[in-house]
């Protein structure tokens, strides 16, 4: 009898626990669903009480006008271009430096590496004003290079790749050297292919960071055609009009969807990537 009751109690507890988790998941997904549903609503339904989760008259007009009245397609391409080139270039330079730190011995190495770690403590916001002034002088305002270049000096990326490269046995490099490979070829043909999981993780992290970057592009990008997608979304809300939530959320869906797809595709590597800082760091 007692045993049965105890089992019942445990069962009850478990159900409560699942209920809690399901509620939590609902809370996590709800703002995204809300955004998704509003993207398909007319203005009259968006500004209507009580609000509805499922649009009564679903419409794609928000998406259409994003592309007809605004250069949003171009903005998405801009984001894709900036994010992928930022990721690719950062990956290249980070792994190159990491290779050097992990596999060579040279005087000042440890000091330089410590210095490099120390730079992570400088918040990049200190540079906003002076870089803006600098960009004005060299005419980099409203240009993509201004977004891509500063991110390439990334201490975290170097640290991350260095950790991974320690796992590559040196014998491999030695035999390559005996075969007459140059240092750079060793890097390109042996090191990089072996670091694929780490590169994937770091690449996705860089891509997402750049895709999501808001403050810096907000400051240096000016013309409608040059904006990245997130800044373009902000630009939709300008002037005293009803906040165009329909357009904003249509844009948001288009901005968020690639991120979620990318995440689901490389979930394992990505999570391994972001957690490496906590465990190894």
């Amino acid at each position, binding site marked *: 009898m007692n045993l049965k009751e105890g089992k019942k109690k445990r069962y009850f507890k*478990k159900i409560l626990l699942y209920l809690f988790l399901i509620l939590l998941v609902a809370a996590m997904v709800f703002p995204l669903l809300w955004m998704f549903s509003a993207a398909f609503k007319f203005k009259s339904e968006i500004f209507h009480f009580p609000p509805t989760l499922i649009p009564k008259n679903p419409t794609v007009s928000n998406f259409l006008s994003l592309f007809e009245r605004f250069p949003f397609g171009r903005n998405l391409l801009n984001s894709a271009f900036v994010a992928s080139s930022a990721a690719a270039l950062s990956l290249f330079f980070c792994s190159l430096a990491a290779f050097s730190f992990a596999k060579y011995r040279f005087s000042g190495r440890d000091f330089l590496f410590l210095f490099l770690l120390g730079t992570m403590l400088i918040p990049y916001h200190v540079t*906003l004003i002076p870089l803006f002034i600098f960009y004005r002088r060299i005419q980099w305002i409203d240009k993509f290079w201004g977004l891509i270049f500063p991110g390439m000096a990334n201490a975290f990326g170097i640290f991350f790749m260095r950790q991974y490269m320690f796992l590559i046995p040196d014998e491999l490099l030695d035999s390559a050297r005996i075969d007459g490979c140059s240092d750079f070829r060793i890097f390109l043909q042996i090191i990089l292919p072996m670091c694929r999981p780490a590169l994937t993780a770091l690449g996705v992290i860089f891509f997402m960071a750049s895709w999501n970057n808001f403050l810096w592009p907000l400051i240096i990008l000016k013309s409608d055609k040059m904006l990245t997608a997130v800044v373009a979304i902000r630009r939709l809300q300008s002037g005293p009009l009803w906040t165009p939530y329909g357009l904003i959320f249509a844009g948001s869906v288009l901005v968020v969807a690639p991120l979620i797809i990318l995440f689901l595709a490389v979930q394992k590597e990505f999570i391994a990537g972001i957690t490496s800082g906590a465990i190894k760091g």
Partner: protein
Amino acid sequence: MAKQVQGIEKESPFKRKKRRGNKIPYLFISPFFILFAIFMFYPTLYSFYLSFHEWNGIGPRTYVGLSNYAKLFSGGGLFLKSMTNCTIIFFEYVPIMTLGALILASLLNSRYIRLQGVFRTFIFLPYVTAIIAVTYSFQYLLDTNYGMINLFLSWFGIERIAWLNSPTLARICLSSLITWRWLGYNMVLFLAGLQFIPPELYEAAKIDGATPLQSFFHITIPLVKPIIFFCIFLSTIGTFSLFDEPFILTSIGTSTGGGPVNATLSPILLLYNMGFRYLRFGTASAVAYLLFVVLFLCGLFEIKFLGGKR
């Protein structure tokens, strides 16, 4: 891991051979240092210089001594205000979020729960969305007249609340948004840490008659302490460099972000307003410098603290 690294270093003929007079390793690391010099080091110095000047970006630059710093502390004390806001926000969300993430991680790590992967993915999902997008979503959810939150409350007979018009409530809304976005991220960090705790420990504790709660406090928490510190470290930096969320969430109608009554003004938002709305580059640089000093000290303190623990 560390041992393994040292082992490699000692045995490697590759390294021995490359030891002296080789320029290649310097060549490989030079891009970082060149980029650092141009995009970090020079601006950081220039920012320091600018913080003692008054300049609107067009007219002449005038040296004004410490007056930019004085400006930020006298009167309304905008810098202190922004730091206070962030401190309040920090205490509003960090304890709940960190503990919540740890509890969730323990739950999803145990074999007690099925479908762990599904739960984990969904809780992590907010982290891989665009901040701008979800901030607008929150703004609309919280809308006084047309928001879902007020509809929800109305089912319980609670009258409409103007969430973003009250300083206290607006900060709580901001904290909720941050928690929503970062809970899963912190949980994943803990999950990674928990995998290093051998399950035998829990089994032994169970045999000794410990309740799950007891083993949570006596096994889990002590063993993931470094990760707890790491999470708090990240949250500190994150909180004091908030920008996107307050910038969007509280820009309603003609009022720009940071309101009401500066309750959600963050240091970076202050910097942005000073520099790019009022064209006071000197004052903006002073904000940047003050923040830099605070964050740098925080960082050193935490590293020392963390380093000591290891």
